[in-house]
């Protein structure tokens, strides 16, 4: 860290814009947060990063911490712009990638199209050799055919090779030997083996994950190398940290090796931000809600912990099976409901909102960029929730006539008036989001009333109070950095790696305590070895252990926290008790059946320096000083009320207010329902107590 001050940077590359947030802490503890935005520059995205650094007027030589999130990986996948990839797998299993799981989500459609595998059949080759499910060698690996296979791959212009063998999750020896031999025979080729990414069973999911990782590896390597070089050329002393899908960052070296773990990094940093904010303001139980232009995402944080799972899917829709990516991803539900989601009426006069979105171009009708179909944002504008004279901080002149025309068209199809159409849009959008929040809370056995809703993104603050009321959530928090919250979250990240291992242990067996201890210590050793190779000292590394438990013969498991150190027989009993309890909370019953451990999940984190957020000054101004005007606001089911409009930029700690009210900031608008009360905390976050009006 610099002697006189510290400078922490987060940059986030999106499809359209590249964002930057910096936090400068002076020697006297004063902080300044700054933001900048510039156009993304495909295909050379690193140029956009350099541009935004220039624009923010920060000097790379002063960077103490540089976190970076990018959509480069997910773009390469969805746009099919990755490398020509081949697969080497176990004899008898080359068609696993094409067979997939045999499912047909669009189940009444007799002409359903199965997703095409990322590796065509002629590039899927087999080698003899077999490991049993117990990790024992049943048939020795025979690599005598490998040179010919690789020659074929070279002749076909293959750029990356994936290796995935049956039961490699139990013992990866054959994969390791194969990768070593490939590197000898074909130095420099991008190669990924399944055990490097996942030690979980299910061969199709693991094979596909390995293939997708190989597919994006050359792209990722190229991109990260150029980015690192450009930053070094500009004088940056350290190396960047790369945002991962598990809510942590990783080193460039780690991300370069297994790039697929970046796949969902954008949403992950927002969820992590909500957890970190919860820690600062003393709210360990949080539902994070991010409402953007095209989607809304929500995730649950219980007891300060984000939830991770490994069943992420790319391109999964109600009419397509999609592609599984079995890497640790923050557990979130995403729905096609954002500010730009288009409202439409079907031929049977039913109103729908989304999932089609007006996107950045043409955007909502109100933007006046050629949009003609009413969106959620347009409905909010028509209801007076958004200030037509202060739209996007006054940077856009609102096309209010266009909004009225678009709403009138819907109204005539619905046989109602304009206001009812607008209310309908907002209510349906809200209900879609309520159902999404239920999926991450009540559906997992958590009562929303025990949680605080942290809302961010462009539309989060607009809808949060209505959603909270619907779900009986008692408190809503709108972060000070609501508009750039994902990047703020990235500034708060630790280095994090999740080690997940499928292994069945009968918890009633005598040696359960020995087995658990050995495996956990083995995983911790592996984590320390990996970190050490990247000069991260063991003293900085912290572990959190989880086990995945189920009743014998079940398949899906419940994750339970496990204690540090040796697992004594007494601890085995208390772990089982915790499982019974968690299971009953989630599923309403418990069984008198043997408990089985099916997998280990070790979280290994290394701190990279924490920010202590600045407490804002109080100048003695009152809430009345922040009052801008009053206007009539339509709260849909909660009626039409004259509401006070506050200038959010003038809020100071300690100020309080009561709904109906609107707080306008440059990036977002907070809508406060009648009967709700708010206050500004010492960091500038807005806390709103919702009053439950129904019994």
């Amino acid at each position, binding site marked *: 860290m610099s002697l006189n001050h510290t400078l922490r940077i987060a940059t986030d590359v999106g499809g359209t814009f590249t964002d930057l947030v910096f936090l400068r802490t002076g020697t006297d503890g004063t902080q300044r947060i700054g933001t900048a935005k510039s156009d993304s520059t495909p295909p050379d995205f690193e140029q956009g990063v350099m541009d935004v650094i220039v624009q923010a007027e920060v000097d790379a030589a002063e960077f103490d911490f540089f976190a970076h999130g990018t959509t480069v990986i997910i773009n390469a996948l969805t746009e099919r712009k990755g490398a020509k990839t081949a697969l080497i797998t176990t004899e008898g299993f080359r*068609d696993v990638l094409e067979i997939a799981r045999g499912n*047909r989500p669009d189940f009444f459609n007799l002409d359903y199209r199965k997703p095409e595998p990322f590796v065509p059949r002629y590039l899927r080759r087999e080698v003899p050799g077999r490991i049993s499910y117990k990790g024992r060698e049943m048939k020795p690996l025979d690599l005598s055919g490998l040179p010919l296979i690789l020659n074929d791959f070279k002749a076909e212009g293959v750029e990356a090779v994936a290796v995935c063998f049956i039961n490699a*999750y139990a013992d990866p020896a054959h994969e390791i030997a194969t990768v070593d031999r490939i590197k000898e025979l074909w130095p420099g080729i991008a190669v990924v083996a399944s055990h490097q990414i996942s030690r979980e069973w*299910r061969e199709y*999911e693991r094979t596909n994950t390995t293939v997708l990782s190989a597919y994006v590896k050359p792209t990722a390597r190229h991109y990260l190398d150029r980015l690192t070089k450009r930053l070094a050329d500009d004088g940056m002393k350290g190396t960047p940290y790369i945002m991962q899908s598990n809510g942590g960052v990783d080193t460039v070296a780690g991300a370069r090796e297994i790039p697929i773990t970046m796949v969902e990094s954008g949403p992950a940093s927002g969820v992590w931000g909500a957890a970190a904010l919860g820690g600062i303001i003393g709210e360990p139980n949080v539902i994070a809600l991010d409402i953007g232009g095209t989607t809304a995402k929500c995730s649950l944080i219980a007891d300060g912990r984000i939830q991770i799972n490994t069943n992420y899917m790319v391109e999964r829709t109600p009419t397509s099976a999609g592609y599984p990516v079995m890497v640790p991803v923050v557990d979130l539900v995403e729905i096609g409901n954002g500010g730009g989601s288009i409202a439409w009426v079907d031929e*049977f006069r039913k109103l729908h909102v989304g999932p089609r979105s007006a996107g950045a171009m043409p955007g909502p009708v109100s933007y006046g960029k050629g949009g003609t179909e009413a969106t959620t944002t347009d409905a909010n504008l028509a209801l007076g929730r958004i200030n037509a004279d202060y739209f996007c901080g006054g940077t856009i002149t609102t096309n209010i006539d266009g909004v009225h025309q678009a709403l009138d068209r819907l109204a005539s199809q619905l046989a109602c008036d304009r206001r009812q159409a607008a209310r309908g849009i907002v209510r349906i959008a809200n209900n879609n989001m309520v159902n999404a929040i239920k999926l991450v809370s009540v559906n997992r056995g958590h009562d929303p009333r025990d949680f605080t809703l942290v809302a961010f993104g462009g539309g989060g603050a607009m809808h949060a109070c209505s959603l909270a009321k619907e779900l009986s959530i008692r408190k809503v928090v709108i972060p000070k950095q609501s508009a750039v919250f994902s990047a703020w979250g990235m500034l708060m990240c630790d280095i994090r790696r999740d080690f997940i291992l499928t292994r069945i242990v009968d918890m009633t067996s005598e040696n359960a305590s020995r087995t658990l201890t050995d495996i956990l210590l083995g995983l911790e050793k592996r984590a320390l070895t990996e970190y050490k190779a990247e000069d991260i000292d063991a003293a900085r590394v912290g572990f959190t252990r989880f086990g995945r438990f189920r009743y014998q013969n079940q398949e899906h498991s419940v994750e339970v926290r496990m204690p540090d150190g040796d697992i004594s027989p007494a601890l085995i009993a208390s772990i089982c008790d915790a499982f019974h309890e968690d299971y009953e909370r989630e599923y*309403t019953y418990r069984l008198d059946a043997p408990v089985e451990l099916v997998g280990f999940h070790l979280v290994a984190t290394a701190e990279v320096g924490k920010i202590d957020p600045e407490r804002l000054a109080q100048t003695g101004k009152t809430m009345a000083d922040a009052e801008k005007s009053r206007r009539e606001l339509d709260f849909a089911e909660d009626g039409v009320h004259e509401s006070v409009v506050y200038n959010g930029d003038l809020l100071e700690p300690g100020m309080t207010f009561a709904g109906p009210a609107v707080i306008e900031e440059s990036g977002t608008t907070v809508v406060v329902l009648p009967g709700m009360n708010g206050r500004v905390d010492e960091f500038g976050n807005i806390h709103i107590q919702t009053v439950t009006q129904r019994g």
Partner: protein
Amino acid sequence: MDSKYDHITTEIIQSSVQAAADEMFAAMRRTAMSAIIYEVLDMGTGITDAHGELAGSGAGIPTFVGMLDKAVRRIRSRFGSTDQNASSQPHYHVINPGDVFAVNDPYQGGVTHLNDIILARPVFAGSRMVAWTANAAHWNDVGGCMPGSMSTDATDIFQEGLTLPAIKLFRNDRPVSSVMDLLAANSRMPDFLFGDLWAGVAALRVGERRIHELISRYGADAFTHALEKYQEYGEQVSLKALSGLPPDRFAMKEEQDNGQVFEVTVTITPEKFEVDLRHNPPQDSGPYNLSLDGTTVAAQMVFKSVTSPQGVCNGGTFRPLRVLTRPGTIFEPLHPAAMGFYYETRIRLLDLIWKALATRMPDRLPAGHFGSICGTMIGGIHPDTGRQYSVIEPEMGGWGGSSRGDGNGAQFSACHGETYNCPAEITEMRNGIVVRQYALNPEPGGDGQHRGGRGVVIDYQIRSPEAWLTAAYTRASVPPWPLRGGEHGTANRICILRHDGGIEHHTQITGLPLTTGDVVRIITANGAGWGSPRRRDPGKIADDLRDGYVTPDHAGHVYGYESRLLSEKL
């Protein structure tokens, strides 16, 4: 303010009912004990109105969702509509809050076979019954003459296990212990039975909770109004689609593997879709009978697929559908005809109606698929744990080509949907068998301008003595049917490669003894072709050659590949 029946409230209730069915599905899947439920997803969840009409499309395999309304209606008729007295008169024959009912009798609302248990729970607003939450799932063993309760040799339903003719399983949200004891005593796998039962109950509770939330938010009247409106909407969507089909009447006959002939006459008008099955063989002396309700489900599946495959599906959807049958035939058997393998007859029927329609509208529907559930059951003692294991799974096969392109390879039958195969790695650990190969079927067949997709070849090697195999595959001799001059697909069958070198072929077998080292080779059919192979794009033929889907010889003979390339060059 809006009236209490405003459009938007109605729509919010409708979409929330659908979300509740999805939640029920997720809860049940995560807690089930049997692989056939949690992995194969041989299950469905849904919500009906108070009368037992499906309120939404439910979640899971549509053929399972299609059982729920029929079961609830049976419970209602058996227990009477005494809900008015419900709170004051708690009695066994009264439907009360906190009850859970179970049905599996195919003659009385159970629809399929005794293994499929439907659980249903009434939902009350005060003393008024407003809805039911229900689910159906395949239980591993409900007694009967064979492990797994299914035998191709069964001659009446009593040999297929314990019949539950709509019984009360829970009272006041607590199990009726005598009934639970009876269930346990009649299953070879009571631990699995209870695990799966509780998973179903948990799902019912989830659904009930959601409905209660909706009622407390919007009121019972708005809730029931929304369900009524939703069914009207379902009916409108179907009628609109019917009016887009040409009015027509046509018949289709098809010979079955056993030489019998099945026959259907379909009549389409703007108001109705009639499936006449009155001229069909007498009921089967074995377990291949399809109950009247099961026959209706098959017709519903095809009806929905040709009218509006995406979007709303509820009780109203099927109002324009008429199904005509004759008692004592295979499509309306009389008690006590056996039903264990009903599903092969059901997919034969579904496939026949599909073929009848596709022949009239070959650009709208694909050519025939492998057309069998290919239900495969393997059991024995796990060589490493010493515990009983049982594989119970349908198999994937090839689908037919269509006007849009080649058929999919390795996909479960038209009676399935969100059905997943069991990964080889899980099969090996759970059952102690070795999966030797998991491949696409390389044999020729199903050629066409758009060719059929590939079936599968799966080898399961047995690792312990005294194992057994039960299976019943159809489309074993009459192959999948082509369209517009395409070629037929191939056949479904099982090959046993004995450890001593012997080879056997089977399509219908019960309790075949297997021992250490024997390999069960499952082979499923390639789908049929659409259009003449001679019209296939040469670029696609080149891809098929490169990918090893056709041999050069086959490409020359059937597709005329070389001669066509030559003539194109000239």
